[in-house]
C-alpha cells in the first residue's frame, strides 16, 4: 500500500512522538511534537480544532515534514527518518470524524485515550478534533540514527539516491 522503506514504517508504527514542521504565512518553520499514526500508506496526526494555529498554517501551505528522531519514543529503535509530504486537514465533523479515521490507530499507541473518551463531556474542547492526513512524498533515512552522514533518500516509485 505504501512506498516508504520498511525500516521507516517500523519507526512510524512505534513512535509515540514525531516532530511535525509546518510553514507559517511569513515562510518561517514551526515545529510541533505530536503522536504520529500510520495506516500503511498515509501518516495521520491530529489536533484540537480550537487550540492550534497549525491547522490554519497547513490550510495555507500544505507542505510539511515529520521527523522521527527520538529512540526513547520509538521503543529503543535508533534509526531516524524525516518524511516530507503534503498535508490535508480533515475537520468536516470534528465531533466524530476523527474517531472513524484514527481512533483505532491512536488506541494502539496510547491506550489511555479510552479513559479520556469516557470523560469527553467534561473535555468538550479537547475532543473537537481535526485530522492531519499526510501523503508521504520524499523520505530521508539515517540507519542507526547517525545524522553526521548523508541520509538515504527515497521517493514513490523511484530510488532517488
Amino acid at each position, binding site marked *: 500500500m505504501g512506498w516508504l522503506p520498511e525500516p521507516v514504517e517500523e519507526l512510524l508504527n512505534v513512535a509515540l512522538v514525531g516532530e511535525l514542521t509546518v510553514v507559517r504565512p511569513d*515562510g518561517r518553520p514551526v*515545529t510541533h511534537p505530536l503522536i504520529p499514526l500510520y495506516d500503511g500508506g498515509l501518516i495521520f496526526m491530529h489536533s484540537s480544532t480550537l487550540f492550534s494555529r497549525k491547522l490554519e498554517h497547513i490550510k495555507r501551505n500544505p507542505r510539511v*515534514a515529520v*521527523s522521527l528522531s527520538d529512540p*526513547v519514543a520509538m521503543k529503543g529503535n535508533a534509526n531516524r527518518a*524525516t518524511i516530507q509530504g503534503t498535508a490535508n486537514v480533515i475537520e468536516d465533523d470534528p465531533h466524530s470524524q476523527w474517531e472513524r479515521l484514527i481512533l483505532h490507530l491512536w488506541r494502539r499507541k496510547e491506550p489511555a485515550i479510552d479513559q479520556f473518551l469516557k470523560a469527553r463531556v467534561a473535555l468538550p474542547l479537547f475532543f473537537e478534533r481535526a485530522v492531519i492526513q499526510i501523503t508521504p512524498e520524499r523520505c530521508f533515512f539515517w540507519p542507526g540514527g547517525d545524522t*553526521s552522514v548523508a541520509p538515504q533518500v527515497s521517493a514513490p516509485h523511484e530510488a532517488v539516491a
Partner: protein
Amino acid sequence: MDAVDAATLARLEGYPFVVVSWVNDAGYPVSVATTFKTDGAARRVLLDEPGGLAIPTDREVVATGSHIRPQPGIGYDERRYLSVWGRAAAAPDGTVALGAERAWGWDEAETPFFEYSERSVPQSRR
C-alpha cells in the same frame, strides 16, 4: 513567543539532541536531528553540522528539543518541548551557530495538558 535568555538555553541543554528545521527552496520543511551545545552568554545554539543536509544561513531555522516518557499499556507522560528560532551562521569551530532570537515551549510538569490547551485558545485565534 518569548525572548531568549540564558535560562532558556539552559533548559534547551536538558535535551540530548534537537531537531533542526528550515524551509527549503522547493517550499518544503526539512528536519534533521543533531547534537548541540549552547552559549548562554552569546545567546547561541552551536549545532553539529548534519551530513548531506547543510543548515542554511540565508533563512530562519528552528531547533526543537522534545521529550516524553513512555508508559507501556498507557501511552506516555512527561511531555515537554522547547523551540528556539533564529538565523544560522558558520562558526569557527566547525559547528553552525544559531543566533537564538525567540523561543516557545511547554512543560507538562509546569502546566498540565488540559490547562495548557485551554490557555492556548486565545493564542490560536490570533
